[in-house]
């Protein structure tokens, strides 16, 4: 059994005690699931022990995120393990305790000015509104990607403690909090990032969402195959009908394609390759377009029961419909990928493509 198998088994064991929640204003996340994961050290997987993490590889963190995504776990683990914490570490910023949920904010109009608030160097004052913040109102800390002071390129990455900050209530299609945070001149630790480093933070978020989509779509396919094997009409299982087989095979093509590219992009990230932004872009685009086919076909095969809140399918299809938008949708990243592939001239598309992953 590999390390990842062990991690997956542990997360699955925990998930068996936490059925997917119907998220509401009163219950915007699964606090109990988070507590169990944190207690088991799973909210620090892939983060170095000397920084307060649980150790392990990126692949272990991805395994945790995949398993939670497939289980529709309403916790900020993808944001913490794959985006915010690695970005803070890369910028030499201190990590909050992995037991306290940490999220990331890359959108909105937040500016950072260097501040001399007496707490030493590396301090910034953040002003503005961060929008579409995953788990706003839930996460205790936010890694904010802010506009740099005038005259400087790149961005400022800063760590904000959300205690005392008001979060507006907004949710994505699955009810996951995606509100705004108003930053009114808060003094926080931060670091200057180059444009490339800032883009890597965005790419991490895109790849994290692609990982979640990939895992969720695999589960949707498995559920749909299972349902087609059990549901009987005209005296035989749905899966015996060629029309249904064609739909399921098409879903399998999308799911398998997405998983292969997402895996490759994760490896590119792990190896620190300079093409990782393009790899993440491609993974996000591929995953997003897979959602179109897989969610549509899954609902078609499930029939009316899949269109209800009583049945489990919506926990994943609604998430996928939102995750494909978040962290940059297919339009944003396909433009970035297209432009990146011909950046060295239009004659070299093929060599450029073979370098991405």
């Amino acid at each position: 059994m590999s390390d990842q198998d062990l991690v997956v088994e542990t997360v699955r064991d925990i998930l068996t005690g936490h059925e997917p929640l119907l998220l509401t204003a009163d219950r915007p996340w699964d606090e109990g699931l988070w507590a169990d994961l944190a207690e088991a050290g799973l909210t620090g997987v892939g983060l170095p022990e000397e920084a307060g993490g649980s150790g392990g590889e990126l692949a272990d963190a991805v395994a945790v995120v995949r398993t939670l995504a497939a289980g529709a776990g309403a916790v900020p683990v993808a944001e913490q393990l794959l985006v915010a914490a690695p970005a803070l570490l890369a910028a030499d910023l201190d990590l909050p305790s992995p037991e306290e949920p940490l999220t990331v904010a890359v959108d909105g109009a937040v500016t950072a000015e260097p501040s001399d608030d007496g707490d030493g160097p590396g301090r910034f004052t953040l002003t503005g509104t961060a929008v579409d913040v995953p788990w706003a109102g839930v996460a205790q800390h936010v890694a904010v990607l802010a506009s740099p002071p005038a005259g400087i390129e790149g961005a400022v990455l800063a760590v904000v403690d959300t205690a005392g900050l008001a979060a507006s209530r907004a949710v994505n299609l699955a009810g996951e909090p995606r509100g705004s945070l108003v930053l009114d001149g808060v003094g926080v630790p931060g670091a200057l990032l180059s444009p490339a480093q800032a883009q890597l933070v965005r790419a991490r978020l895109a790849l994290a969402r692609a990982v979640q989509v990939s895992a969720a779509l695999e589960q949707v396919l498995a559920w749909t195959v299972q349902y087609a094997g059990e549901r009987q009409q005209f005296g035989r299982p749905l899966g015996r009908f060629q029309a249904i087989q064609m739909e399921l095979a098409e879903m399998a093509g999308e799911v398998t394609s997405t998983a292969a590219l997402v895996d490759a992009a994760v490896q590119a990230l792990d190896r620190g390759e300079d093409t990782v932004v393009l790899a993440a872009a491609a993974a996000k685009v591929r995953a997003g377009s897979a959602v179109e086919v897989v969610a549509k076909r899954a609902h078609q095969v499930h029939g009316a029961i899949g269109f209800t809140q009583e049945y489990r399918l919506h926990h994943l299809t609604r998430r996928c419909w939102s995750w494909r938008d978040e962290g940059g949708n297919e339009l944003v990243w396909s433009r970035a990928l297209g432009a990146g592939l011909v950046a060295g001239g239009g004659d070299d598309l093929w060599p450029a493509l073979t370098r991405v992953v």
Partner: protein
Amino acid sequence: MSSNQLTLAPAPPSEAAEQVRLEVRQFLAEELAAGTFTTHVDTWLSGVDPDFSRKLGARGWLGMTWPREYGGHERTAMERYAVTEELLAAGAPVAAHWIADRQSGPNLLRYGTEAQRKEILPRIAAGECYFVIGMSEPDSGSDLASIRTRAARNADGDFVVNGAKVWTSNAHHSHYGIVLVRTGPPGEGPRGKHQGLTQLLVDLSLPGITVNPIRILDGGHHFNEVVFDDVVVPGDMLLGTEGAGWHQVTAELAFERSGPERFLSTWPLLAEFGRRAAATGDPAQLATLGRLSARALALRQLSLRIAAALDRGELPDIPAALVKDVGTTFEQDVVDEVRRVVDVPASLDSPDPLGRALAEAQLHAPGYTLRGGTNEILRGIVARGLGLR
């Protein structure tokens, strides 16, 4: 998903493959500069150039994975993958040797007699001996086991073949065919028709063989009808086991379906479109380029996994069916997606290279999702991999 039959392990990185990739890329740049070929769409069907095939043979890029004693080079499937990918991406004229190198040679290696291997494989690896696929017939397409071409042993133990094969690519340029014939009666039950089938190694210059051209949509002559009229095939040209043809043909199809030509047939169009998008900087064109490239990148990963599985000695027929379904759909979609964001009429006579590439890709497009097994057949195989059949 890891427990189902569709998912393969990621391919380990191969430095040797990246090395030979660069060598092939350099060779192709030199050949293009010298004008020995021009880039076209779908050249693994339409680009017959024996001189070019011999050059590849001389460089050791044919029969790459085969044992040295048969003219091969004992390299990995990953290295062969890199070579074929580069040739396809450049739209190089590889049709003459393509079938022989891809599936007939491996089929001979697996099932051929020592004499057959010694006689033929070194010539394939040299780029001098070309093969056709003898499967489909006028009344047997997707239902391959319903073929009616028959072979009966005569008093000398030779096979007397009667019947006809169709869609036989480049039979007018080829030396041999591996021909699926009925040599015995079908058995009982739904799979009974798989019994009594046999593969024969047929010299296409034998008396009684007639090759009639069939032109495809752009007027090109690649397809043929090959008619067998009391053709006497020597008994020692039996390939493998008499009556085991169905099993052998299934293995051959795994090779036929597993390569990068199942998503790169229209790459030259995409490459031309990339030039256009770079020149205009048009956001809609760049987005289309990115979307199509993301699909190509995913297909590469899947195809690389298949190459790695071949190196492990597996015959990944179900994943290959999946990749061919997704890949050939992509080949067709390239035409549709590109033409939505450029105002360039498709024409073989276009002064614009993009217009010519669109025309070639469009006129060849119906074939992508038919040849080597229709996508409906492939999805049936995928459904079996999902446990539905």
